[in-house]
Structures are given as structure tokens and as C-alpha cells.
């Protein structure tokens, strides 16, 4: 739980709060638990990298989530297949009309870590290089925009400079974004029944 009352201003969330909020919001949006866990992990990775996790996640959740245009779904697939012969990053593959391509970065980072190679994503005028263990090196913007075709390639990690992770994560979420995410969370919760309340605390008062 983040806050009891609706916020009218932007909030600065901890990574722990981002994880809890996004897990529940993704599940509330109708995705399965696997997607919720992976999506939340991706949101935290983006936050640690200083990127706008909330905009990217909301763009992902605006989509149906079933097709090949969903970066969460495609991301899980490329991470799972990282060490298999049909890996999407070897030698080069394309994802067509992907929603919010920036959300693919954390999954490409998993591929980079597992294969000990750099993974490079290109879309529109943006290029993002994922070097094992490093934050993303982004030229251009990861901001959400209409769908984009994304090309994924791998390259020797030595070709890229290694960078340090930022000291502080990007915890900022606007009031509007927060409201949308908490609305999704509400779809995942259950009203407490009288039955479940019984025995969950003192039935009388606690003035003992």
C-alpha cells in the first residue's frame, strides 16, 4: 500500500513500492501472475536505470497483452530463449509494431547477462545498448510513441564502454499515472468479508 488518500501531486516511490504497485496493477489489468512478476521486475529495472517506468508500463497495459506487439510478452520470450538456438537476438531479428519498445530493455538486459554479450535495440531514431551488468546506454528517447519496429542484434560486449548504475532510482510517478495504476490495483483486490475478518484481530477493543 502506498498511500491511503488519492494524491493530487506527483509521488516519489521507493523501489519496493514500485514493485508492489506494479505487480498488483499488472495483475489487475488481467495479465497472469508470471507477467505481473516479470513486468514489476522490469519496472524496477527501468527505475534503477533512471527511465520513466510508469509511462512505459501504462503504455504496455493499454494494449491487449496477447499479441506479438506487447513488449512484456515478447520480453519474457527473448529472455527465456536467451541461451537457445532460436534466440531472438542472434544474429538479428525484428519485432514489428511493438508498443512502448523501451519496456523491452530490461529483458534485453537479461539476454545480455545470460549470453555475456551486448544486445542492441534499434527503433526509429533510438538506439539502446545493453552491456552485461550495466545500465542501458541510450541515444535518442525511450519515451512512448506510436508503435515502432524494433531490431535486436547482439555484439561483443568489449565494443561498448561500461557504465555505472545511477546512485538514485527514478521513483517519480505523476498523480494521474498513480491514479491509473491504483485503479488497476483495485481490480485485483477482494473486499474483506466478515468471515475473513473474524479472528484477524481483537474482536473487542485493545485497551488491555
Amino acid at each position, binding site marked *: 500500500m502506498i498511500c491511503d488518500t488519492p494524491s493530487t501531486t506527483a509521488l516519489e516511490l521507493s523501489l519496493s*513500492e514500485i514493485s508492489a504497485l506494479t505487480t498488483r496493477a499488472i495483475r489487475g489489468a488481467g495479465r497472469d501472475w*508470471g507477467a505481473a512478476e516479470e513486468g514489476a521486475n522490469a519496472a524496477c529495472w527501468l527505475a534503477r536505470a533512471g527511465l520513466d517506468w510508469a509511462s512505459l508500463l501504462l503504455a504496455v497495459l493499454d494494449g491487449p497483452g496477447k499479441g506479438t506487439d506487447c513488449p512484456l510478452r515478447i520480453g519474457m520470450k527473448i529472455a527465456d530463449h536467451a541461451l537457445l538456438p532460436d534466440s531472438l537476438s542472434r544474429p538479428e531479428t525484428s519485432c514489428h509494431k511493438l508498443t512502448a519498445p523501451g519496456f523491452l530493455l530490461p529483458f534485453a538486459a537479461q539476454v545480455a547477462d545470460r549470453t555475456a554479450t551486448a544486445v542492441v535495440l534499434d527503433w526509429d531514431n533510438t538506439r539502446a545498448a545493453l552491456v552485461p551488468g550495466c545500465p542501458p546506454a541510450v541515444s535518442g528517447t525511450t519515451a512512448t510513441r506510436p508503435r515502432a519496429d524494433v531490431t535486436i542484434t547482439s555484439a561483443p560486449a568489449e565494443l561498448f564502454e561500461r557504465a555505472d548504475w545511477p546512485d538514485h532510482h527514478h521513483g517519480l510517478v505523476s498523480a494521474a499515472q498513480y491514479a491509473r495504476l491504483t485503479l488497476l*490495483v483495485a481490480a485485483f483486490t477482494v473486499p474483506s468479508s466478515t468471515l475473513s475478518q473474524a479472528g484477524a484481530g481483537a474482536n473487542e477493543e485493545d485497551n488491555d
Partner: protein
Amino acid sequence: MSCAGLNPVPQASAFRRGPDEVMRLARMGCSHPTRLSFLRQFLRRIKAENWQFDRPLWQIDAQGTGCAVYRLTGPVRSYSLVAFAHDLPAEARSDRVIATAWDATFALFDGTPTPEDIDRLAANVPRQEAGRISPRELSLSRANRSVRVFDHVVARLAEGRQPDAAMLLETGYLMRTTAVYGSGKFGAADRAAIAGRPELSAPFQAEMMSVWLTRAFTVDLVEHLAHMRGGDRATRLAPELRRGLGVGNSTGLGMAPFVIRHPVLLNNWMLAREEALARVRSQPCVGRPEYDGFLNALHLAQENARLWHSAHGVQLVKLAELRDSLAQIMDHALHAWDRQSAHPWDDLWHWGQDALQLEGQEALLAAMLEPHGALIDGLGDCMDADEDAFFAIDGAMTIGELRAILTSRYAWALDVDFTARHHSARFWYVSEDKLEPRLGERYHEPGASRELPLDVARQAAGLWAALSDEPDDLPVAHVLLAHPEFRPILRRAQIAARHPFAEIRDNLIAADMLPIDILRCKLAFFGASRFDPRSDRWVRISLFQGAPYPDEMAEAAHDL
């Protein structure tokens, strides 16, 4: 961190208990605090590093409201508990998470707060969940008075008399915390931001620090109020009575899912404790200091069991078992134990396995660890966990390998018939009102479609069945494409393959599952005493009862 490189007792491996024995709820629900408990680790560090204590601010009025700051200063950093005392009407006093006001509220500040920091905290901390704190804070908590004891102590001290010792012993605390939030909750510092500090690397050390300083505050508050009321007639609490007071805690279901959602952490807690037991069992002799230390630990356990009360039926039976078992152990240790055998501690352990109920066996474990600090205390360094390192699923693992994991780690779950109502009677969910975990009755309440994935046994059995027609050499990545719903249990299985104590090996949605068994295990690792269930899903406990106060640490024993 890994314990792989920290094993100076390789012969202990022959004496280890297996997870099929250890990870059963019936046994976990008999857990006792040990010297590896987080509270004990915290106190030993404070003593060993000679941390200094002071109280730089005390602005509490005659009604007991205001603000105070308690500061601990270690070799590198200092931490301050900022305490706010409130005037709470009796009708507003509730330990439930649904409460909105408390007798006292607290934040643990990273360093020494400025007046501006205190102003910021004063605007937020008393509101608890409705407020926000910052990465400068490590925890947020609140406490309510045990009104009967609190008022009695103030009244007696104001008259220049000591309170009734029996009443103090019966309750054991002046205030009880009703929530201690850490790890990034409500804007506080994330665990990752502080886990690299040696003093906070063991689990829940910031929370322990907060509660320990809260204990000092509760005593200072009654003495202050007594002085305000009685003036020169008032006296201070006698040291022996003061020492007997801890901080109470009311804890509910919210604590249980934590243990299930952190399998690597649970593994590391269990593994450290089990390795400690194995090391002791592997010892070839019983030295005089160890024997005396063991007898002393038994004596203290008997005294604790004598004072430990509960009205809950399950706990009453356990307490009777515990008292009987401790008497049996003492008698055996004094009159029958052959301490000249090849492995006397192992012999004692095997005797306990045959002679004692589970409650007594786990009490014996705690007493056996007690005199072996030099042998086992280093294992405390192995009880944290880098959980991120185990998040990614290995999609290249083959179905054959996954089947082998399920067979070796989840055999207890694979044959359960989850279509039978009593095997799937419950479901875990998050409540709409306070976003807190709850346990519902699947066949009597709505909401099961929003179930939390804590039905580990059922998921494992479902995955096992789904794999039945798949070839052994198929990578699991292909299964996930067809069955994304198995992603959470597949991740758990891959974690369990490398962490044998990662899973509670019982059905967590069964009709007869007792959440308090999970709570007791976790609270024992915290170092909690006087576990007192008030239902099958909430308990009261005590922390730091009998422990030295911050101002007593200079004279305190080293082996805390």
C-alpha cells in the same frame, strides 16, 4: 551472501537434518528463538562495536505528548529513533491495521535529524500509512499502551512505590508495536540501499534497532509521567523490573506471505540454523563451559516457559508439552546423558528425537546452540539474500531436469488431490480496504479468481501434470510459451533446486493449515518470545524482554 566459502566444519554435513523433516509446518510452528535470531545478532554487534547511546531531545509534556530522539552511534554511522507521543482516546485504541491513531509513532532516521527533519517527520509519522517518509528514514512504526500496566506503573512510581512485579511479568511490556514497516515502505529507504552496511546487512536489523530504542522510550515515558504527577515523591523503575519489560507486538496474517514470497531468504535462515545444529551435533566432546552453558540455557528456557501464558487452545497444548519436555531434557542432561561418547551432542539429539514432542525437540535445538557461539555465530553472516540474482528463469533447462527438481523438491505436493475441498479450502488474497493479505474460504466466499500465487503445492502439482506428455529434452522456454501460467512455480522450482530449504513443504491452502505456524517460525528468527496466539491468524509476542537497555550496554555481558 553465500555460505559456500565459510564452512570451517566440513564434518557437520553428516549431521544435517533434511528439508523434508525441517520444512513442515507442524515443526516450523514449534520454532524457538536461538542465538542466531536477528535480535541477538543485533545486540551482540552493538556490544562488540561499543556503540554509544544518547537522547539528544526530550520534549514530552506533563500529559505525555511531544517528541523525543534516541540516538545510537557506531564506528561509522549513527541512527536516531524519532518518537512522537500522543494523547489517544481509549475508544481509538486498536492494534488492527485498520487503526488511524496510536499512543506513539516512530521513525528510524539515518543519522541525526535536524529540526527541519523533525518538523517533516512530525507532519507525516503520526499519520503512519496516510503519510510519507523519505529515503532518510529506515523504518516507520507505531505502538499502543498496555493500558492496565502502563497506568499502574505510572501511578505506583508517582507514589514513590514500585509496581506489582507479578502484573509486570504477566504482560511483559508497557507498549506493543502494531506495525514496524521497513524496506522502502511508505517512501523509506529501500533494503538494497542499506544492505551493504555491515551493521544492517543481517535481516531486519533496522527494525530491531527501532524496537530496542522504542523499549527505552516506553520506560522513559512512564518515569517521566510519574515524575510529572508525583514530583519529588516519584521514583524510578527498579532495575530488575525494568529489565523484565520488553516491547510487545501484535502481528497478523501480513507476515505469513512474506515468508512464502522470499524463498531464497527463507532458505538462508533455515540453512544457517540447520548448519549450526549440525556443527554442534558433530562435536566430539562436551567441554565444561559448554555443558554449563547448556544447563543454564535449559534453566532460562524453563523459567521462560513458566512465565509464558496463552489462552489459545493450540498454544496451551504446546506450552504443556514444552514444560514437560524441558523437565525431561534437564533430567536427562543431569542424570543420563553419556558425555564421553564419540558424539555426545548427537547422542543427546537422537535421544530427544525419540523422547520428546516437536515442541521439546525444537527447544532442545535452541538450548544446544546456546553455548556454542564461537562455533556458530559466524553463520549469522549467511542469513541475508541477494534475491535478484535468482529472479531470471533459465529457459534452457530441459523438461527432464525440471521433472527431476519437482520429484526431489516437491514430491510432498505432487500426489495431493486438489479437487478435494479440504485440500483447496482456502485462498490468499489482498484486501480492498487496506491492501493487506487475507485468507479466504474458497467455497464460502467470493474472490478466489483474484487469488495470490501462494498455493505453491497446487501449482507444483499442476506443473507436474502439464509436463506429463512433454519430451525430456524440450527446453522449459517452450513450455512457458504454451503455459505462461506456470511461470511463477517454474521460477520457484529453479530456486528450490539450488536452495533446499526454500519451500514450506505443506499445503498452504488446506482447510487445516494454521497461519500461526508460519508466524511463529518467522518470529522465532526475529528473536521473539512469549508467542501468544489470539486466533489461528494473529498473535502477540514480546521482544527484548530480559535484554539490556542501551544505557546498560557498557556493563552488559559480551555473549548476548
